[in-house]
């Protein structure tokens, strides 16, 4: 339905490049990325508040790339909401309807309908600055929905409200989506993306690096940002080569520190993912069948939800977990030498 094709945009030293994705009718699509990745700029490009240098924005077969903002069927809810301070809630919601020159009765009906849906009927004659963050968020949503936009663009919609209100607003956004409005939701929060997205795109340094269902994206991450977000601490970019006369692959994470694994033999570059649960720790050199055996020094050791999380510098930084009992039993502390071992078959190689 809405398709972005090879969008390129440059401002100062920042660039958005090779941005392509498609959002289907009624889909809840999340753009996830760290601060400064270009998420908000991308929404502004879709909304027509700024124009891309090249590429196309196609909606239902029509090219909107050069269309002015006021002629685009995309409603944007800004991160800072941008409610009009000199108008009360009623006039804020009715703003777009007045531009359509609808009669007063129709405007009143539509405002009432939206206010009921978003539970803000009691706020209609108050000024925005007298409302709480959650109330303002609802007013901003109502104002944008008044025009019945085909696609709703949400810029960090839950960032300004506290945790208890976030659940309420998530339910509200799902309800709006169920009513048939396609949503593009921009966020830096992994939990938010996981909770809301039917599909998610990861944007980093001005480009989209992965698009898929949350399961596809977070189970097989393609950037350290996503790997960290989804709890994968042992995530490395590696040069891959094939071991002679073997199915094994040698993933060179840093010079002299290969990780052996299995995977696509045609790969020359990829990402190596080691689940910390698969790392076995030992004080002495273990007599194990594991193909990957690293000897290093504990550089960090701190309590975590499941015991202790330790970081081992063995040429590469490996993260593992131990129970509190094990830490006590082996008298582990910062600076202790330790072996970290894992099987080649426990390593995931991602292209």
């Amino acid at each position, binding site marked *: 339905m809405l398709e972005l094709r090879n969008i390129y945009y440059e401002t100062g030293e920042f660039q958005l490049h090779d941005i392509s994705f498609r959002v289907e009718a009624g889909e809840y699509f999340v753009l996830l990325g760290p601060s400064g990745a270009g998420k908000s700029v991308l929404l*502004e490009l879709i909304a027509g*508040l700024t124009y891309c240098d090249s590429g196309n924005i196609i909606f239902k077969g029509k090219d909107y790339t050069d269309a002015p903002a006021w002629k685009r069927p995309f409603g944007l809810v*800004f991160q800072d909401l941008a409610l*009009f301070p*000199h108008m009360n809630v009623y006039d804020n919601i009715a703003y777009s309807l007045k531009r359509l020159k609808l009669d007063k009765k129709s405007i009143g009906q539509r405002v009432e309908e939206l206010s009921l849906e978003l539970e803000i009927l009691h706020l209609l004659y108050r000024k925005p600055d*007298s409302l709480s963050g959650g109330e303002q968020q609802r007013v901003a949503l109502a104002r944008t929905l008044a*025009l019945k936009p085909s696609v709703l663009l949400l810029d960090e919609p839950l960032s300004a409200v506290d945790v208890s209100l976030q659940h309420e607003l998530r339910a509200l956004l799902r309800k709006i989506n169920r009513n048939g409005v396609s949503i593009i939701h921009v966020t830096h929060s992994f939990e938010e993306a996981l909770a809301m997205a039917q599909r998610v795109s990861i944007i980093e340094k001005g480009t989209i690096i992965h698009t898929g269902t949350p399961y596809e994206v977070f189970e097989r991450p393609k950037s350290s940002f996503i790997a960290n977000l989804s709890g994968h601490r042992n995530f490395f970019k590696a040069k891959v080569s094939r071991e002679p006369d073997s199915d094994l692959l040698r993933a060179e994470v840093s010079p002299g520190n290969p990780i052996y694994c299995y995977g696509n033999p045609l790969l020359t570059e990829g990402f190596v993912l080691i689940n910390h649960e698969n790392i076995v720790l030992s004080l002495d050199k273990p007599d194990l069948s594991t193909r990957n055996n690293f000897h290093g020094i504990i550089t960090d050791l701190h309590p975590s939800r499941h015991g202790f999380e330790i970081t081992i510098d063995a040429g590469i930084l490996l993260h593992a977990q131990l129970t509190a009992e094990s830490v006590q039993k082996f008298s582990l502390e910062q600076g202790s030498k330790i072996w970290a071992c894992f099987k080649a078959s426990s390593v995931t190689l991602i292209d």
Partner: protein
Amino acid sequence: MKRTSTFYIISSLLGGLALLFIIAPLLGLMIKSTWPELFQVSQNRDVRESIILTLVASMLGTLLLAIPGIPLSYMLARKQFPFRRFVLGLVDLPVVIPHSAAGIALLGFLSKDSFFGSGMAHLGIEFIGKPAGIAMAMAFVSLPFLLNAAREGFASVPLRLEQAALNLGATPSQVFFTISLPLAWRSILSGLIMMFARGMSEFGAVVIIAYHPMTSSVMLWEWFGAYGLKYARPIAVLVILISLIFFILLRLLSKNDDSVSRKKRKKKDA
């Protein structure tokens, strides 16, 4: 004991001197003038006519130039365009050039010998020696006050609000009239008051465009030259008082506008 910084004490003393510099001559003028003198001057028909002409010409010039001036301020606040910095400097030019020189420049522009002057004359509008010319001279020297205040007002309106309005289907002109103008209104009104007040007090440019009919500043100059300080003083007091009355009235108007909107807000909130 509460300690006060030496710097603040010195600053207060110096600040007091600056205030005294403004107040002392005005106060001296007031003290030296008697009520019977003031009453007598206010009964003089020429004086009354000159004051009305001054007020009307300044008001007319202000309102007329506000029509192109406000959009120019908006463009300067919002848009980047070639030679923007040059235009920003140009806007302040009437403040820095000698006003008599500004009058000479205007004379060339408004006289019937010029393209503009002759074109307007064909439409029945003449400037030299006419109230319309006085209004133009007043507006020329005082326009920067409006342009700068309005530009600052527009710049203080968050761009996000205008973008939100565009996204809600408003065209740029609708955004201007429904968002930018209402939110910058207080600064614009303040600029209009300053322009009006400064226009009223103009002498240098006005006297070159029109010695007659006489504005209050020109009349003051003539009375001073012809009859001396004793006769000029009461008219000076009268002109200052009238300027002050209008200045305070208009200031109150802009303040009331703000307090009314505050009251409305409270009422709706209740």
